[in-house]
């Protein structure tokens, strides 16, 4: 039983990563009908930006210029990295996707893959083929709750991820910009007729998705501090699966599917040899999709694609 709960804790942590990344996929897909296949690599770059910012702040602190406690460095790292990664997302939208707005969807998909490769090799070129390790900002504290081992980091990761998901949910439900995203997801052709630029909304959506990917990158680096330039690929694919599973345009769906993915992976690994983990986990997901082809909360895209 304690073994079971131990796995629940681990699944929640992995689910947090998947869910945060899936949100970016899901938002872009819902407003532009395209998958940003560079998104996994934006997660990777977010982690590296976090690494750079944290390392710099730690060095400044150690040099005695300004002495900051670890938790404050962590908060600053998250905020600064979100901002910088959002800029990267806006740049990717501007140069990678906007020129292809009316091109076939396949061209946009290839562009995403290309941008991903550029980000990976750009990273290799900048930092060389070595793995870097994320500085330890907070001391690990371990709690034993009836045999289940919890750490302050795991708890923090899950809570921070949930807080960002809730914030995004409220933003999309209640803010003017969130309303614009919902309108655009329903019928993007009509958006300019309301005096609103599609580009503005697309840019903002990329910014938010990328900022959340940066949060995921930093949270991941706290749990697994060794970074490498290809870490975004597998995460990107899995988050993509979660976004599909959640259903088009559903924040809640993408988040739930991210956690579900975490649970399936962890619990399959509990019962089967770990080499079979992905095979079995993703077969389960395929079966789910057969019964719910539009995902948990998705609806088929109804509006016509032109006026």
């Amino acid at each position, binding site marked *: 039983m304690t073994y079971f709960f131990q796995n629940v804790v681990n699944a929640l942590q992995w689910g947090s990563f998947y869910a945060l990344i899936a949100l970016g996929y899901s938002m872009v897909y819902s407003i532009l009908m395209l998958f940003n296949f560079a998104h996994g690599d934006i997660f990777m770059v977010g982690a590296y930006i976090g690494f750079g910012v944290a390392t710099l702040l730690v060095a400044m602190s150690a040099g005695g210029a300004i002495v900051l406690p670890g938790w404050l460095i962590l908060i600053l790292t998250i905020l600064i990295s979100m901002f910088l990664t959002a800029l990267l997302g806006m740049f990717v939208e501007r140069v990678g996707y906007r020129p292809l707005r009316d091109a076939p969807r396949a061209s946009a998909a290839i562009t995403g893959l290309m941008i991903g490769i550029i980000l990976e090799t750009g990273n290799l070129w900048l930092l060389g083929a070595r793995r870097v390790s994320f500085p330890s900002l907070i001391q690990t504290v371990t709690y034993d709750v009836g045999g289940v081992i919890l750490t302050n980091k795991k708890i923090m990761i899950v809570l921070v991820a949930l807080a960002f998901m809730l914030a995004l949910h409220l933003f999309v439900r209640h803010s003017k910009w969130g309303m*614009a995203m919902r309108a655009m997801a329903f*019928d993007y052709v009509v958006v*300019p*007729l*309301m*005096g609103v*630029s599609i580009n503005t909304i697309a840019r903002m959506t990329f910014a938010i998705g990328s900022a959340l990917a940066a949060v995921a990158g930093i949270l991941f680096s706290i749990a697994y501090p060794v970074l490498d330039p290809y870490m975004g690929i597998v995460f990107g694919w899995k988050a993509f699966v979660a976004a599909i599973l959640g259903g088009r345009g559903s924040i809640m769906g993408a988040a739930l599917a991210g956690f579900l993915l975490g649970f399936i992976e962890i619990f399959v690994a509990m019962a089967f040899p770990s080499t079979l983990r992905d095979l079995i986990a993703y077969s389960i997901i395929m079966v789910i999709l057969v019964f719910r082809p539009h995902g948990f909360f998705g609806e088929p895209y*109804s509006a016509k694609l032109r006026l």
Partner: protein
Amino acid sequence: MMLEIDNLRVSYGGIRALHGLSLRIDAGEIVCVLGANGAGKSTTLRAISRLVPVEKGGTMRFVGRDLLGYSPDKVVSQLGISHVPEGRRLFGNLTVKENLRFAAFARKDGGGIARDTERVFTIFPRLQERAGQKAGTLSGGEQQMLAIGRAFVSARKLMLLDEPSMGLAPLLMMSVFAALQEINRAEGTAILLVEQNARLALHFAARGYVLENGHIVLEGSSQALLHDERVKKAYLGG
């Protein structure tokens, strides 16, 4: 002259839909464009809203400005031209209120937005009753009211209306047109109306154009068009 269009040509994938169309609208005027299916009526409105590319040689000026220098969203937010598209195209996943709020997205004049929204609710009390309802679940008539209200809130120097009578019962149709007349009278909004229902359009508009296969074949005052033999034969059922 509010809107001046000359030699407007538009093609879809190499097939020309408008062959050098010229059209004028004065400030505060109601003008209609009649024509059969596929004549190019919607294309004309799409060209004014900058949703389709216009071929070289054509000009479109709105209150002295070159329309071709504006992107579709700026045509609405900076020039003040709104467009009720064919088939209404409401945001069915948003409530009535949200549809109106989104239409005001680009506006900065909070007081003006509140006033215009209030105005929409005065003209169409049904919409106020249904303010919290998802637009996708409204009846056809209510949807048309919301489509007009939404356009009114987004911009109201000139409104482009693409077949607002479509799918409405006669009584409702009359009340929608009465509302449009009221908007035109009270706000000075010019209206360019595209209609297949020629009789209705000619009673509502002061002037009209007849479009056939992308060519303007006739134009004149509504009175003149109502008594024109060709119009009678082709569009008024004898």
